[in-house]
């Protein structure tokens, strides 16, 4: 992959004379100038509300929004851009499926299944659905490499929801085998792709899932926009959560009807500039090539596992597992927050804490971990700086 470092403003910052080492990309990624400029250009030249006005400027804004939808479709290998719904992010996407689809369809005898390593955003919405419907929420245990045990899936399983890449361990789950196991039992599948879409080539048609959720801001795009992709028949089964302008076919005092997907889920003015930014991020990643992006993530995370494992007192979680762009570890005798604060003295940004995955923390018997996560602008030398700083603790 070509040297992309110069495309990103923030990784060139320094703190007290030390170059910033940003390794908190699983929380949010930095943005390339191409994304910032595309958004600026939209506001300077094409800003108007989308799908409202009949004047030419409004048509440009509508085309900007729909152009972004088409870019998403292509990027995730979807059959039809109408299956791409814009949301505020992964969290909203999952909540939309939970309340708009699952809460309306599940019965007391049904089961919802998640894995033990889910982020709270792929756990709490299902917990609520279980409380609302009386359905049972089952949690697939994961082994020491973070692989879930499938045999818990049963005939009553109506939905399996799992993250393709763990936001804590960085491990890549066997998505296809999980989907096949769920399919064999007639269950629908939701993939939390927040940590996989930024780093792995992916096709929803190839995966054969029902729902896929992700955020723009972890994949070099702006905050405030994300995606729910769902197969057309699933979108038809889903009711919107937000009602208002732009989603209604016909409104009357007695009865109102909705537009078809995706519009029925997009009430109110959409984040058009953010959609433009997301499209620019997608095109930036496509130019690099997702195979090269994945190779870079795997190379740096393997290097991190090797280097950190050699630091006395450092224990890497799921060290042997196949992973994407995240490495989580403990430092003997030091609380994760204190490790992170200490690394900040070296201008190294890592995350410490439970990473919104408290059930997994209980499994690992830790209150929290230290997490380093990678993006395309990170270098092997930065991983070495992290290892050296940990050795100095």
């Amino acid at each position: 992959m070509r040297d992309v470092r110069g495309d990103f403003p923030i990784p060139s910052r320094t703190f007290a004379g030390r170059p910033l080492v940003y390794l908190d990309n699983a929380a949010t990624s930095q943005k390339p100038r191409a994304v910032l400029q595309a958004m600026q250009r939209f506001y300077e030249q094409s800003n108007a509300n989308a799908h409202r006005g009949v004047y030419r400027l409004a048509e440009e804004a509508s085309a900007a929004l729909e152009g972004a939808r088409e870019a998403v479709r292509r990027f995730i290998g979807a059959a039809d851009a109408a299956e791409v719904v814009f949301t505020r992010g992964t969290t909203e996407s999952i909540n939309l499926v939970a309340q708009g689809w699952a809460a309306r369809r599940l019965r007391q005898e049904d089961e919802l299944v998640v894995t033990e390593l889910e982020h709270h955003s792929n756990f709490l919405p299902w917990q609520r659905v279980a409380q609302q419907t009386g359905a049972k929420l089952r949690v697939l245990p994961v082994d020491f490499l973070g692989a879930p045990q499938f045999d818990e899936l049963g005939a009553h399983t109506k939905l399996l929801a799992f993250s393709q890449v763990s936001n804590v361990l960085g491990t890549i789950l066997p998505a296809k085998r999980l989907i096949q196991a769920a399919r064999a039992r007639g269950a629908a599948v939701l993939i939390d792709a927040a940590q996989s879409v930024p780093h792995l080539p992916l096709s929803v048609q190839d995966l054969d899932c029902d729902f896929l959720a992700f955020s723009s801001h972890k994949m070099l795009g702006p905050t405030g926009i994300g995606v729910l992709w769902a197969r057309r028949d699933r979108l038809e089964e889903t009711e919107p959560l937000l009602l208002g302008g732009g989603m209604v076919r016909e409104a009357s005092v007695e009865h109102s009807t909705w537009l078809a997907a995706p519009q029925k889920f997009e009430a109110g003015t959409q984040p058009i500039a953010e959609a433009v930014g997301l499209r620019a991020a997608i095109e930036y990643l496509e130019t690099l090539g997702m195979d090269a992006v994945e190779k870079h993530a795997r190379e740096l995370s393997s290097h991190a596992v090797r280097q950190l494992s050699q630091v006395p007192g450092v224990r890497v979680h799921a060290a042997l597992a196949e992973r994407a762009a995240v490495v989580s570890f403990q430092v003997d005798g030091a609380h994760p927050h204190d490790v992170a604060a200490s690394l900040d003295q070296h201008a190294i940004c890592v995350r410490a804490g439970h990473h919104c995955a408290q059930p997994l923390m209980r499994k690992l018997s830790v209150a929290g971990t230290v997490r380093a996560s990678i993006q395309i602008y990170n270098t092997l030398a930065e991983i070495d700086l992290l290892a050296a700083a940990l050795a100095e603790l």
Partner: protein
Amino acid sequence: MNLYGEKIADHAKHPRNQGSLERPDATHEGVNPLCGDRLRLQLQLVDGRIAAVRFQAEACMVSIGAASILSELLPGLSVAEARAVSRETLLSSLGTELRPSRIGCALLSLQVLQAALA
């Protein structure tokens, strides 16, 4: 590693009043929702005043250090006085200026104290 000043470092490494009381008059356990850190505080009262304080924590140095420092401020105070201990009092007792992201760590012990006396 001395990021948080001598006083917090000293209290975090050698916490005062760590442990538990056999017959506490008040016990409360609280969690820092940001990081999952957990702290339990126990109080023994004699004639309406705090006679003994013990705490146990699974927490970072700032949380433990602040809890230890707070535990030394409390003995002798009436319940009303202990309830009224302000965040400024605790933060100014830490011997250092914490960064904004760590103030919540220090205040966990104070929140647990206030809940224990509520």
